[in-house]
């Protein structure tokens, strides 16, 4: 019966989704476990810090400054209606530190490094390079995923902090320099309104997003051969797309969940 088929399909999709979630979690646990087993892969971790972190500095700075400037601009014209433009500094800083910093940083890194991870590992999978590692008794998850996980844990908070600082500077540029708010007011309001808990909350989000993004992107590349009916280059392309989309969605959903816990 058609009705039963709909139920069957829905049920199957739900079960497949939960199964995949489980696999991703197991993948994450394996990566985390191997990260703490010596010998430690310092060289590879440094390479990944350079790739994920250092090479993202420019794009994070660029996005940060313009985000701050837009926040300053929009914030001023909203607050001036209530005569509260003086709190602009606090508003810009809080918005960035609590939400926009961690989320936009994560999304930019997804676009730059996350897609690259998925593609690189996916291509290694389809060209049997991962199999070659296994035949050499080299644990492929330890070799490929663990260094990226450690590097993400280090880079995400730093890049988020960079985004926040540059964003605040951007807000200063638009609010103080362009729109004429008093600079002392801008900075003092920022000092008054921003708590340590806001900063630590943003820090926790950055770490959480870092682990989420690296796990999803590496998982998609690592298991590209199990996608089913899509193989070869097209499989890698699908894996990369899935990595980016899934990571972005999970970051936004995770942001809501974390925010509800932190507030």
């Amino acid at each position, binding site marked *: 019966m058609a009705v039963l088929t709909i139920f069957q399909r829905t049920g199957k999709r739900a079960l497949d989704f939960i199964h995949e979630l489980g696999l991703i979690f197991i993948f994450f646990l394996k990566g985390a476990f191997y990260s703490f087993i010596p010998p430690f892969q310092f060289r590879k971790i440094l390479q990944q810090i350079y790739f994920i972190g250092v090479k993202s500095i420019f794009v994070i700075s660029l996005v940060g400054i313009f985000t701050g400037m837009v926040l300053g601009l929009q914030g001023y014209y909203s607050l001036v209606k209530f005569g509260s433009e003086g709190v602009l500094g606090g508003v810009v800083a809080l918005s960035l530190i609590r939400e926009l910093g961690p989320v936009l940083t994560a999304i930019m890194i997804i676009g730059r490094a996350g897609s690259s991870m998925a593609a690189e590992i996916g291509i*290694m999978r389809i060209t*049997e*390079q991962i*199999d*070659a590692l296994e*035949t050499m008794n*080299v644990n492929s998850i330890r*070799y490929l995923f663990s260094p990226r996980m450690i590097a993400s844990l280090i880079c995400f908070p730093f890049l988020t902090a960079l985004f926040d600082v540059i964003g605040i500077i951007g807000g200063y540029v638009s609010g103080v320099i362009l729109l004429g708010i008093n600079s002392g007011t801008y900075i003092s309001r920022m000092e008054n309104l921003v708590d340590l808990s806001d900063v630590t909350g943003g820090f926790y989000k950055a770490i959480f997003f870092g682990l989420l993004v690296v796990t999803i992107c590496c998982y998609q590349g690592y298991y590209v051969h199990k996608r089913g009916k899509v193989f070869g280059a097209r499989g890698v392309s699908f894996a990369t797309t899935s990595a980016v989309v899934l990571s972005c969605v999970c970051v936004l959903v995770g942001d809501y969940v974390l925010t509800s816990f932190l507030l």
Partner: protein
Amino acid sequence: MGIPLIEFRDVSKSFGEKKVLDGVNLKVYPGEVTTIIGKSGVGKSVTLKLMIGLERPDSGEILYNGRSIFGLSKRQRREITGEINFMFQNNALFDSLTVYENIALPLQETTRLSSREIRDRVMEKMEALELVGQEDKYPSQLSGGMQKRVALARALVTNPRVVLFDEPTTGLDPVRRNSVLSMITHNQQNFGFTAVLVSHDVPHVFYISNRIAVIDGGRIIFEGSPMELELFSHPVVHEFINSLEFLKNQIVGVRTRRDFERFFREEVEGKEGRWTIVVFLLQNYNLIIEKVGHLVPHYIFSELVGMCKGFCVNNRVVFGRYSFDKVVLLTEKSPQEVDQVLSSIGEQLKEKDFFNEYAYTDSCVEFSIEAGLVEYQKLKRLYELVDEALSRSRVLARLFCGKKSRGEEDV
């Protein structure tokens, strides 16, 4: 031979609905080169992947030194797989790493050797495989043959106990192919590792193998020495051993002797029907091969068969390669008609390049094509009819070196 180092007992493996291996029993002995041959897609590479643990069997047992691999702990399995290396068909080189880094990786990741020791081992293998000077290149900058050698160097750098080679010579030119096979043999003899090859390079691999296993229909249909293989009677085995002859026969359009005899038994022997048997003999075949080359006899028979087919368009005609220098024709034309055809063929043959002495620069060999015919008689076997036809043969065309070639009526 002793206890097998690797043993498959009733191993089966399916991918989806396709059963690739169906109760495979195979033994690999230590210190030997075992080659697995078979048509494409029969499961040779899968067999290798099962040996190294990249795939798990659906049923059956895989034993290493008498112990089942999958009954061991993960640590014990890792110890076993640590003794086995694999060389992939498509090389599976790490394309983001240089040649040096590719070869050094197994040592860097699985040993505690110092950088200097690693460098020495890597350079030793690079020298043996003529890769010196390529250290800083990336795999995409190398030719296919060089990539193969890098993959080989990587497989051998840890001095493993067992090395599995998945078509190590595919894509290589004949010179490099021989070099790779010879390298495998010499390294195997020097270091004493057990080698398992999957290869299509027949019969070249027979010269380096101690044991051959033939897979067909998901099962091992033969397992033994190369000499035992030559004596083994099976159509698939026969086709592999004589693959070059099979190719020549297919191109020329003749059946193998075995197929021709089967046709004769099933369609001609004891049945009503008028058949004429013609035997074409290429005199001095061995001398042509020795002095001129292998291709000239192939062209001669190819032309001959083409001419006969042209003359026998409206009649059933079957060709068979009776031996290296003889082709047998079965036709429903009468002996008189065939005799006329043979005369025409003789005239046409004289015009061909291979009967022109000037076509041979300094290796002219005198030879002739003879033909004899006999009408099929019941109660006579094929070989008797062939002998009778040969006894009545006449020269269709002859090449004289230093003189003009001419046809003669009788030998």
